[in-house]
């Protein structure tokens, strides 16, 4: 288990404040945040390459804040992999075991086994310069895993990998992590990649962790407009919740949407594009909005569709089949079904506060 308490780091333009994180043993934890937010600095601080200004880092109840990197037994795969260019893939993977003065037979056996698992047996004699992005990544992973680290830290591992390999690699990475059971911290700015691998997510914003939770919770119950926006909730509207009968209704100009269990007051409404259902008949009802298709963007298997209902513009997703069935085209009148269960509300007073670190108490799902 990793326990980070009140960590402050200043490095160049990066200013990380009050980082609190508790990552359970064996979890795959993704730190998700925009590029340039200081995620790499945080990783390198955990690894021991930078000293924090304040705060503590514990590994399985042992404090490691002041330990040298070589004493921590954490493996780090930087974004550019940093494979040693003067060594072959084999020598790169064997590097850590040679540092530990392990017997040559054990090293050879371990390299062979890891190479087999990562499908790089054929590359072992080659030097990093001759490898593709994906191949380098596999060699770097093998090198990191060869020393049986207590924690594996991956900095944007998919950044130098092409789109097609990425999906495949995400699955492999997750399977590998399951097999080794190594606690993993993976830094990413891509939320699809995050969804594919994460047990737990921490959202990183301006040098702070603003929300921690399992992907479902973070995606469906973002704590701020930033988190909602960054995790791909495209419909984010500021309005006011008013009590109505035994429930509550969200008001924005002439828009009315019934919402579940919200306190009255100014609030931000968040609806993920995939939670909106498209209906063909133009019957207006509770939480059904009539409008017209404005734009359709081809996203491969789906269309991203902009629909205008009154003054509000909604973004939603429809499968190709659905779009064909409904004969969707710009200008076509449609009805949107936005059930209260699809709506998440962020009260305005929460937003006014500076985003506060949230301690994760729950264990693995």
């Amino acid at each position, binding site marked *: 288990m990793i326990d980070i308490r009140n960590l402050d780091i200043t490095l160049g333009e990066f200013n990380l404040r009050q980082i609190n994180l508790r990552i359970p043993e064996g979890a795959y934890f993704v730190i998700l945040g925009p590029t340039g937010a200081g995620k790499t600095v945080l990783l*390198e601080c955990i*690894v*021991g*390459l930078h000293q924090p200004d304040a705060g503590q880092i514990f590994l399985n109840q042992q404090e490691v804040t002041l330990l*040298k*990197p*070589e004493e*921590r*037994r*954490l*493996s*780090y795969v*930087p974004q*550019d992999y*940093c494979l*040693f*260019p*003067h060594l072959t893939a084999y020598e790169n993977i064997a*590097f*850590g075991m040679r*540092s*530990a003065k392990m017997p040559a037979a054990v090293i050879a056996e371990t390299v062979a086994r890891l190479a087999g698992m990562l499908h790089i047996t054929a590359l072992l004699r080659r030097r990093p310069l001759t490898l593709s992005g994906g191949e380098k990544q596999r060699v770097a992973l093998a*090198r*990191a895993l060869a*020393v049986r*680290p207590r924690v594996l830290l991956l900095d944007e591992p998919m950044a130098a990998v092409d789109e097609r390999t990425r999906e495949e690699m995400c699955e492999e990475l997750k399977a590998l992590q399951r097999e080794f059971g190594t606690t993993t911290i993976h830094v990413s700015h891509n939320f699809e990649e995050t969804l594919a691998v994460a047990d737990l997510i921490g959202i990183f914003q301006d040098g702070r962790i603003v929300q921690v939770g399992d992907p479902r919770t973070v995606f469906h119950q973002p704590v701020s407009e930033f988190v909602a926006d960054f995790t791909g909730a495209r419909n984010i509207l500021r309005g006011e919740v008013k009590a109505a009968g035994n429930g509550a209704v969200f008001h924005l100009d002439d828009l009315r949407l019934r919402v579940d269990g919200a306190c009255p007051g100014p609030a931000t409404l968040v609806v993920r594009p995939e939670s909106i259902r498209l209906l063909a008949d133009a019957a207006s009802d509770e939480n059904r909005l009539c409008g017209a298709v404005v734009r359709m963007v081809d996203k491969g298997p789906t269309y991203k569709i902009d629909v205008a209902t009154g003054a509000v513009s909604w973004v939603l997703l429809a499968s190709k089949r659905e779009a064909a069935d409904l004969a969707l085209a710009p200008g076509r009148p449609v009805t949107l079904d936005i059930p209260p269960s699809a709506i998440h509300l962020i009260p305005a007073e929460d937003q006014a506060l500076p985003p506060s670190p949230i301690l994760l108490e729950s264990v693995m799902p």
Partner: protein
Amino acid sequence: MAHDVLVPATAGGHRRDTPLKLVLSSVLFLYVGFILLVILANVFWLGHPGAEGDEGYSPVSALFTNPMMRSGLWFSLRLSLVTTLITASLATLLAIPSAYALSRYRFRLMPLLDTIIDLPIVIPPLIAGLVLLVFFRQSTLGRFIDEHVLNIVYTQTGIVVGQFFVASAFAVRALKAIFDQINPRFEGVARTLGCSAWGAIWRVTLPLARNGIAAGFIMTWARALGEFGPILMLAGATPGKTDVLPVSAFLNMSTGNVEIAVTIAVMMIGIATITLILFKRLGGQGYIW
């Protein structure tokens, strides 16, 4: 959209740039031609018969007919090679740790440090020699060294000291550029894999810097080979004792043995050419100091 408009404009602009390209490159080629012309004139002069009116003998043939001249030249060449190899080795040994520290660590007085290191390169070589001479003759510490540790003033050791004073600064600069190019993260990763700080330098940074260090050594050596001013002041210009190649060229020129001076000149140009080729082969960049 603005981008689309720009593309054909640039393509068309390419043709309009031709006269400019012509003017700029002719300046370049004139300059390169001038350097070549000066060098080749010396080579041709050496092999040109009757230049001195000596019954059709070319100046270079004096070397074959006059054993005194030949042995003098041979001595200077050997002296130069031995002293410069010692100098370049010492300078490189000193430069590896210094350049590493300069490249990786942040010091409070960095600009001052930087300036002091560049001083031996920037001050006129003759002045460097004068300063060294005064140090070893007038200061307590310098005199103690000269009298009790190593005889330096007007000796062959003085040649090495004179060369080293300038060449070492040069080596530190050259190697710093090499270490600057090596991502410190390599060492970081090596350490997460269990290497000590020393081990990471030894197993990762130094092997990666190997070619660069070799290139730096070669350029430092070439610089030491051409050193004249400091040697003249500190070691003197005694024929058969402290006349390394440049000093010998100067002495021969002033005593009228032009053919030997020019022979040395052509030899040194040849050495410089080979040095540069080796240096670039090893991946050395365009910096010379």
